[in-house]
């Protein structure tokens, strides 16, 4: 403990960064909190799991194939995505979850002294990756639960390289419509990279919600993120992707780690893309259970924020982290929002009706 030489090796920006400690495995948490059953309503997972064809891939996986390296750049999946969207396969980069592609983009465009701009209450990984890589994250407060277009533009300076827009926003569910997004992109005028994170794209049914991929040919500085973790139920296999202009993706590819996406994930994702029925089933469930939660939470007199995506936010008359512990005692795990800078709010993932009833029941008990 007294040898200071190791400490001298660590960059200052790494010393300042605090590690993220993920939750313990469910079994450990259940043991600690003394519950026999645990409803996971904290990570926006799809209660249906992956589409049936993707599940079949998992069942049929021949174990000796685990010894073989996967395609280093997810060749077939890139071609499938390209065909689906009418683009060039070289416009796609597949990552070990969308988290990995965030790192690819930041590493590709930022150098010492540069900054990124995003919101203060959004998916945290943009901010984290920038900070532990030594770059400033300029955080703009949300306005009425939504990304503040002008606030973000005001934060741009000569060292701004990337603007991250989460659309729809996690955790508030708000989104920029196509008009607003275009106005934003027009002002940026290709001076910076704009990342449009569409992790929850497939959940949105609003007519004015923009499809970022369709805007790529007009805005060469636009990079779109999508994931197989949410709608396609492949969170456990970690697979997501980015798509952008050929020239931009060629730069990002230089910082891209190849062979990081496993063989099962690639094959399951390939088949998941074909299943429109899975998307419809999931949308139906999310729509119905949001309506149920809205009714029940209003009955309890609670403020709620329901937007797009497979989650809602609830404001509680108590500390959200205390509510987390109390709900865990009832076998319900939600996401406390203090870490999102939303004190006393919780985010609840939409799940089966049984799980939603369990949540409402547990919440009623801890509030009574």
């Amino acid at each position, binding site marked *: 403990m007294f040898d200071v030489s190791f400490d001298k090796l660590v960059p200052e920006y790494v010393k*300042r960064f605090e590690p993220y400690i993920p*939750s313990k495995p469910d079994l450990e948490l259940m043991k*600690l*909190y003394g519950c026999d059953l645990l409803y996971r309503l904290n990570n926006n997972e799809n209660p249906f799991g992956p589409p049936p064809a993707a599940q079949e891939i998992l069942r049929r996986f021949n174990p000796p194939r685990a010894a073989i390296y996967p395609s280093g750049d997810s060749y077939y999946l890139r071609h499938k995505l390209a065909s689906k969207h009418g683009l060039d396969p070289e416009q796609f980069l597949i990552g070990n979850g969308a988290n990995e592609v965030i790192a690819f983009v930041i590493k590709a465009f930022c150098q010492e002294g540069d900054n990124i701009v995003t919101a203060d209450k959004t998916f945290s990984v943009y901010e984290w990756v920038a900070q532990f890589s030594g770059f400033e994250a300029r955080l703009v407060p949300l306005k009425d639960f939504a990304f503040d277009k002008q606030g973000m533009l005001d934060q741009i300076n000569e060292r701004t390289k990337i603007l991250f827009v989460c659309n729809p926003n996690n955790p508030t569910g708000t989104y920029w419509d196509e008009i607003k997004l275009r106005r934003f992109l027009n002002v940026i005028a290709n001076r910076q990279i704009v990342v449009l994170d569409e992790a929850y794209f497939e959940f949105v049914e609003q007519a004015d919600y923009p499809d970022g991929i369709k805007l790529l040919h007009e805005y060469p500085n636009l990079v779109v993120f999508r994931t197989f973790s949410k709608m396609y139920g492949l969170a456990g296999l970690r697979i997501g992707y980015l798509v952008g202009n050929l020239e931009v993706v060629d730069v990002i590819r230089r910082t891209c780690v190849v062979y990081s996406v496993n063989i099962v994930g690639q094959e399951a994702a390939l088949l998941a893309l074909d299943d429109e029925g899975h998307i419809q089933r999931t949308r139906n469930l999310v729509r119905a259970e949001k309506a149920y939660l809205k009714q029940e939470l209003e009955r309890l007199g609670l403020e709620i924020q329901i937007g797009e995506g497979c989650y809602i936010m609830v404001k509680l008359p108590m500390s959200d*982290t*205390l509510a987390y512990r109390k709900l*865990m005692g009832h076998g319900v795990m939600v996401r406390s929002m203090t870490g999102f800078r939303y*004190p006393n709010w919780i985010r609840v993932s939409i799940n089966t009706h049984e799980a939603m009833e369990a949540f409402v029941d547990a919440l009623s008990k801890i509030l009574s």
Partner: protein
Amino acid sequence: MKEENIKFSLRTRLGAGFTRIATSFAEESAKAFGMAQPEALKLTLACEEIFMYLSKVGQDRETVEIEMMDGGYYVQSTFLFKTHHFNPRAFNLTAAVNLDDKSSLEEMGLLIASRTVDRFHITEGAQQSVGVVLIKEKSYPELTELGVPEIEPMNTYKVKTSDPNTLKLFIRLLLAYYPGHLYPTGFRFPGKVLDMASSGEYGVQLALDEQGRIGGGLIWRRIGSKAVESFGPYIFNQPPDSKMAQDLTDAIIGKVAKTEAIGLISRYSTPELPRGYFEPLGSIDIFQTDGTVSSLPIYYRQLLEDTGCQVWAHPGLKEFLQAEYSRLFFAREIRLTRYEGEQRSPYSVFVPQFDRSNRQVTLRAIWDGADAADNLSRHVAVLRSENVRNIFFEIDLSASWQANLTETLLGKGFRPRLILPYGGEADVVIFQFEETADSHV
């Protein structure tokens, strides 16, 4: 984000012939860090005593590393060394020198050093390495004039980080508007608060109107590696329906929510503490000078989802812990521990932290020893003789040797009052000495 402190380090061989090198290094470093001559000399004296002691008990050709650090409002001197003979008992408040005892005389230097600085602690490292850390604070004038501007209720305000001059005015307002038990004694020294804020030790958020007038504020600081302590919110002449206290609390939670801090502790909460933000942990009794007893509530807010942890506990504390963890909904695996005849260092060291305005002291064990029970009795006797009526003892349940002190504490009239979740490396239990327990001492 806290900036890294400036540090100088020196590695030198032990021995009387090297003393000047060590003392010059300490003195010149302290001066370079802006410490005034009297305090710099006191710290130098403490360093000299430690160096001479180590030179006496150390072995031939042994070395020591001395690190001097600028803490903003203090200078810290750390001695890192390996030793087979280090006896820290002289660091106890109750230590005295026996002129007929050679080993006691050897320890006189440690005693002088501990009395010359404001704070110290001792750490044990691998391979019999030891660190002695001495902290001397710079001197600041106490605020005596409380002339403050009149504060009007505000319709609009923004919560902002304070600039130095506004912070000093805020402190003056705070002292004028709130009684002494609602803020730490250190707030009486605005220059110190300013330096602590500049060095990143204190964070401050103020509610300011468009003209820059102050409506209220909230201060916080890190305690240990896992907790943040907040002071306030302090609100000046604002209407009862003002959301200022809540906005200030939201702001500080936003500031600390993405740090390594797990919990936010409020020991100096005001009536304006917003409802629903904090959990009541319990209270401690404060004996006032007029003989009355007031109950001081302590509040807590967890910043992260609690994934549970393991704590060490003596069987004598198990029932208390189980009841408290159940009441507070904390998932803990309690591991029982007790002394079972294993070898211990002969002498323990307890460090007091005084709050003289409240005649209050909190003891913490920094070195385990077989004399813990006698040492505790001596401490209680000395403190009571100095009319300190509010005596607390904190143990950190991350360390089994601290949990083992429970038996001693219970036997000497201390009673567990509450748990500070993550108040140390793990949860901390606060024991309070029962005033009526004379027979135990």
